[in-house]
Each structure stands twice: as C-alpha cells, then as structure tokens.
C-alpha cells in the first residue's frame, strides 16, 4: 500500500508575500509529497476546512507580517476544536526567537525562520508525520 504525505501550504491573514511559501511548496513536491497550495489571504477557518477536505497529514503556515502569534494559534485552536490535532502543524516566516517557544507550546511543532535549509523542513516533516 502506497502512502503519500499530503501537505497543505497556506498563507493566513493579509500578508501578500508568497515567495517563501512557493519555494517550500516546490521543495516538498520535489521530495515526493503532494502539496496543496491554497493561495493568499486565508482565514483560520478556511485553512482548517481545506485541511479537513484534503485530509492532509501536515499544515504548513507562512506569514511575514508579524501576526503569527495570533493567526498560527487560531489555526491550531480550530484544529483542536475539530478533533484534528493529529495533523502536524509547522510554520515559517519572520518569527522572533522569543516567539518560538510559545508557538511550539501552542501546537506549532516546527518553527522555521529565514535561512532554514529546505532539507531541514523536509526531514522534520518526514520524521514527525503520524503513522
């Protein structure tokens, strides 16, 4: 039985810079994953709804605006509410060092700042995805 890792890559909020998200999406694709890219300006509800319909193993959030403490947590809260906390959530963008620990406590299990090698993200996902 072939099992493929499915990842939803989403940009929550109003930030319109999606180059980073696209670079990561492409790298994940090239590592053999199925990547669903949702595009810009997604609300937490839209992201969780898409994740549900697509039955993804991973949700990858990208945000450069500084609103990650609110928006990333909205996503993990909503996933929990829907009983989908088995989905691995990772986030990237301009995230200050002091925010990393609170984000991890909120369920964003991987936090990747600028300059993270793409291999690190791929390995983290492959190593932490359920089953």
């Amino acid at each position, binding site marked *: *039985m072939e099992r*493929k890792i499915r990842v939803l890559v989403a940009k929550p909020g109003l930030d319109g810079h999606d180059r980073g998200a696209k670079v990561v999406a492409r790298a994940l*694709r090239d590592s053999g994953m199925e*990547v669903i890219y*949702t595009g810009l300006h997604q609300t937490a509800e839209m992201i969780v709804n898409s994740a*549900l319909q697509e*039955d993804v193993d991973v949700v990858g959030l990208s945000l450069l605006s500084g609103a990650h403490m609110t928006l990333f947590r909205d996503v993990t809260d909503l996933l929990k509410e829907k009983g989908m906390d088995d989905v691995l959530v990772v986030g990237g963008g301009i995230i200050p060092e002091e925010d990393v620990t609170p984000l991890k406590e909120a369920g964003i299990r991987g936090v990747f700042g600028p300059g993270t090698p793409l291999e690190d993200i791929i390995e983290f996902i492959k190593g932490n995805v359920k089953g």
Partner: protein
Amino acid sequence: MKDLAERAVNGDDRAVARLITHAENCHPDLYEAMRIIHRHGGRAQVIGITGVMGAGKSTLIAEIALEYRKRGKTVGIIAIDPTSPFTGGALLGDRIRMSRLTMDPGIFIRSMGTRGMLGGLTGAVYDVMEIMDASGKDVIIVETVGVGQAEVDIIKIADTTLVVLVPGLGDSIQTIKAGLMEIADIFVVNKADVPGIERTMAEIESMIDLGHRPGVRKTPVLATAAKECKGITELVDAIEEHREFIVGSGSLPDRRRKRYEAELVEIIRKRLMTMIFDEKVFREKVESLIGRIEGKETDPYSAAEEILDGLLK
C-alpha cells in the same frame, strides 16, 4: 472501514475525506467501505471539464459551482493535477482559484495528483466520485489535468463533458481536433474578453458543421469570461439541457454502463498489477523472467504468457 463508510453516507465530511485518502492509497480493506458506498450512489450528475493548460478551468469550475449552489444543488469537486513522474510529488494548485468556495458547507473540494495514470485522470477517481455521490452531493465536477490530445478518459466517467478552449489558439485547433475536439458535449470558449474570440468561435463552429449530420444533436459552443462571471448562467443552462437530452434519448444508462465498465477495468488492473509486481512469489518469478529475456532464453511475449498462466492456475 465500514464505520467510515456509514459516516460518509451520512454526509460526514471528515469521513468522506479519509475514505478518499484510503482510495488514493489503495488501502487493502477499502472494498469493505465501497460495498456500502456503492449501494448509496448513482444519483449524482457528473460533469467533466477538460481543456488545454491555462484555459481557466479552475476559475470556470468555481463559477459553475456557485451557479449550481444558487440553484439549490450541493457540489463535489475533484481537481486533478499532474504527479511528477520523476519524484512522485505533486503541486496541487486548483484551490487557489476556488478560495471563495471553501467556507460553503454545500461544497466539497478534493485536489488529487494523477499518481502515474495517463489519460488526464487518476486511478482513484471512480472511487472518489462514488464516495462524493453517496455522501449526498447532487453535482460532481471533475477537472482533468491540462490536456493536449490524448487525455480523453474523462468521457468514460462524465454525463456531460465540457471542452474548454481560449481565443488565440488559431490554427492549433486544427492540430487538436483529433482527440480533444471529438469528446465535447459542450464547447466553452473561455476568456471571451480577450481579442480573437469571434474567430475562435467561428473556427470551432465550422469544424462542428463539417461533421454534423441532420437530425443529430449539434454540439453547442458557448463563450464565457469566468473571471468576470459572464456567460455562466447560460453555460449551466446548456449543461442542464444536455442532461435532459441524454435522459430523453435514453443514452444516460449507456454512459453509466461505460463508467462502470471503466471502473471495473481499473479495479482489475490495479489488483493484477499489485499481484504480479508486488507480491513476493510473483516478484521473484518476474525477476527471473526478465533475466531470461535479457539472456535471449525467452522473449517478452512468451514471458508474459508464462506469468498469465501462473495467475490463472
């Protein structure tokens, strides 16, 4: 598995989503669920949308879905994009154009990779259609990958097939007429706001006229500008007209039989391929036969014969 099927039939989106994953991964127990699913299916209207890359298929589907919602129907969307033959990965981007549909509980969208299937579809598409159908979706829209000439499998599964073209293809319509141009129940020329629309419409119409016989339904050609929401009501009217036509002329059951035949072939193909190439006993036999072909001790046809004999025993 059975429990998942029962929940899907009751319209539980999570169960629907999980079952689709099992179908995509060829889960060995899937058949238990599909037995239940099949009993509840067969109601939904299936619309296939195919056409050249960049024709605006995803945007058009979003508009068609919204129009069906206005008419009180629920909609399932299966959006297929190519899987890389080199890495097995895929970038599925159809949701970008369908963002507005995400929060509507009456719409369920699933993005799928082709996972090695040619023909513009994916191996699990039959299962996914049945699952969405059984979960209560009234209309199911299947979007194929952007196609060239040979990706015409969509007619095996759709009640109504839309071929989407854009202005500016010019003489290239001549080159694609052999495959893609033969399967349309409705032609849609999208991006009607782009210059050259009249010429493209005229070219398609004259091509249809050439092959048209009196007394036979003539394939309509419609212009849309999906991004501006133009021509969508007319298009959905045309889809409904076509549906009435196939119901009235008695060809709907034929189309359904063709779909079930294609589904049966696909299930058998999958099972046989798994049996021959994945199961240890057979795998060893296959390896040794390949060696013998290489050493000119046998030829590929005789080797295939030997494998099939082994299967039939």
